[in-house]
């Protein structure tokens, strides 16, 4: 009879296993609060965007985007746990609920937004695809690249952009698709390809990994639009709003001149826009399901968008990227956040 018993137990366990439906009653905000931390998906290491240092502390603009959300919810920018993900894994990790939000230089496209059960909440970095080429080839423009062999990293929108660009210009190319960015650079350095293509923000970082960075240059052409931004699961509008408005709060803070240095003084500001952002007036936080001082906490602990940019990818960092498109709308860029009121 022992056998029958164990079969019955096994069957009961199976029942439990399969009937555990995914439709959990708790909202994302509730489950994040219950866990006491935000689970955020990032890259496994991309300078300027998300990279762990030698002590295991994560830094980067994508990391700071996660920290700002944690600061808004908990008032503690450190209440984040990071899940390093490859390009292939990232969307599945978010769909399956392994992470609460994805902030991993992910390009906002229609397919991803509409058919994968995901929502892009905004753009924290406007990028575009470019080319890194060996100087000795004497090429100055991407239109001279017909017949070139091109190294690409797998799992990105890069392959399609590349193909589209060459087809549109009636040129031919040979793609070599590597699994990781290290192998892509190695292939380029070993001479397997003439050109390496990636988002412009990454080309500078990849070029710095070459033995002789001076032997390669970045072509002036930008062949695609790559709006990179945080992603959340579809179907939880409150969570979608929170992640969206945390970024807007950072951009608005820069526009209003609130920085992590002057944020305490700004609490006494008479400007109603500043008051609403910092929570000294109105109930903006409550509308989102957050504490009213969420803006104050974000700016105090993470900083406004400009600070976040300069610290991670700006001109004084190894990446040395100018603000360009990522400047505020009134300073020549296209960053434009809806008003916080």
């Amino acid at each position, binding site marked *: 009879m022992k056998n029958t018993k164990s079969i019955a137990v096994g069957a009961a366990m199976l029942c439990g296993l399969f009937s555990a*439906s995914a439709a959990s009653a708790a909202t994302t905000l509730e489950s994040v609060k219950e866990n006491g931390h935000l689970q955020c998906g990032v890259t496994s290491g991309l300078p300027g965007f998300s990279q762990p240092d030698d002590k295991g502390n994560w830094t980067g603009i994508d990391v700071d985007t996660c920290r700002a959300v944690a600061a808004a919810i908990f008032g503690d920018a450190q209440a984040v746990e990071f899940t390093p993900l490859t390009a*292939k894994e990232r*969307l599945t990790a978010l769909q399956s609920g392994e992470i609460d939000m994805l902030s991993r230089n992910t390009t906002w496209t229609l*397919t991803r937004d509409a058919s994968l059960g995901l929502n892009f909440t905004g753009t924290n970095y406007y990028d575009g695809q470019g080319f890194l080429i060996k100087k000795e080839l004497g090429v100055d423009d991407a239109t001279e690249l017909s017949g070139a062999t091109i190294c690409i990293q797998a*799992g990105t929108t890069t392959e399609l952009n590349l193909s589209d660009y060459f*087809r549109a210009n009636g040129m031919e190319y040979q793609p070599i*698709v590597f699994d990781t960015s290290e*192998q892509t650079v190695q292939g380029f350095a070993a*001479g397997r390809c003439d050109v390496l293509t990636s988002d412009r923000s990454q080309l500078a970082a990849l070029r710095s990994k070459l033995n002789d960075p001076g032997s390669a240059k970045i072509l002036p052409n930008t062949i695609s639009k790559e709006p990179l931004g945080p992603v959340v699961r579809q179907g939880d509008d409150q969570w979608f709003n929170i992640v969206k408005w945390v970024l807007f709060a950072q951009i608005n803070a820069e526009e209003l001149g609130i920085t992590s240095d002057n944020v305490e003084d700004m609490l006494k500001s008479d400007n109603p826009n500043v008051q609403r952002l910092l929570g000294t007036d109105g109930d903006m936080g409550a509308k989102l399901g957050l504490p009213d001082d969420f803006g104050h906490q974000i700016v105090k602990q993470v900083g406004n968008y400009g600070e976040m940019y300069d610290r991670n990818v700006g001109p004084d960092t190894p990446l040395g990227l100018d603000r360009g498109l990522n400047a505020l709308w009134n300073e020549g860029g296209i960053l434009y956040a809806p008003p916080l009121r």
Partner: protein
Amino acid sequence: MKKQTVDSRPTGPKPWYDPRIRSIFFQFVAIALVFWGGWTLVDNTLTNMESRGISTGFGFLDETAGFGIIMSLVPYDATMTYGRTFLVGLMNTLLVSAMGIVTATILGFIIGVARLSSNWLVAKLALVYIEVIRNIPLLLQIFFWYFAVLGSLPSPRQSVEVADSFFLNNRGLYLPEPMPQEGFGLVWGAVIAAIVAVVGLRAWAKKRQLATGQIFPTFKVGVAILVILPTVAYLATGTPLEWELPALKGFNFGGGITIIPELAALWIALSLYTASFIAEIVRSGILSVSKGQTEAAKALGIPNSLTLRLVVIPQAMRVIIPPLTSQYLNLTKNSSLATAIGYPDLVAVFMGTTLNQTGQAVEVVAITMAVYLTISLAISLFMNIYNRAAAIKER
């Protein structure tokens, strides 16, 4: 005492105590559980994906892929469908697996026999080869061959060239491509005729040997037929074959046949790695043949080379084939490491780019797993048929 007539036949246990009925019942329950489990998994996945707004189904296979692939055995360009990228990746996987299996087998047999050689140096060299190669992870070996080979080759403009038709550089090996002209069909006909002739010859020679004991030099005559017949046809039809030579155009060579370094590195690494395992299998097979067999052959005056070929190897094959099948399966599955060096195999193309562009993870991964399962089962089936032919036949 009165004799009582008692019906001594057992009445049989009640159905729930009958072991036969019981075992059928439990088997039925087990099967029902398996089916219910599988159905629940599929149904749960579909329901959850639908409730999260994730599109499902295989419709994406008909959409335009839009990305380029460096190497394709079937015509392919970016305007074709995702279904086509599947075919391209599958063909590339099959190509490198087939090439690897052939060379690994040849190399493995040579090294396995060398390992048993009475020549001390040959035996120890084989031993060192086996122990070094099979104890280093395959991925490292692939990287070694890829970057070691790439690093030592010149750039396209400084190619190593032979007779203005063969070029070697770090973009690959460029060979002239044969372009059959009108009338070449006759040459193909001659090739087929030669093959038929050799098969017939072999059957005749075997029959004659069984009848008279005389050995006919089938191998030499067979090779002669295979070479001479097509050559005669080729010359008779006026050499209807032209060669397209590769030439430097812009960045790279164009025209001719290209063997990309990714394919070469993967092929070399897979062959060498698997050969070291096959060598040990061959050695174990040969050692499993009892010494008496060799001694008996010697006593009959059969030369050493014939003893190995006719007495030892046929008996060793019975031991060799089953583990050899596993090695073929391993090699095929290991070919998926191609993705690390950019060889466009099924995993790199279909489970890589196609999966990323469509986001249809469940479907793409399911298809890919089904393909590897099918390839593996096909190899097993083929090897089992061969095994049955080689196994001891009770007469």
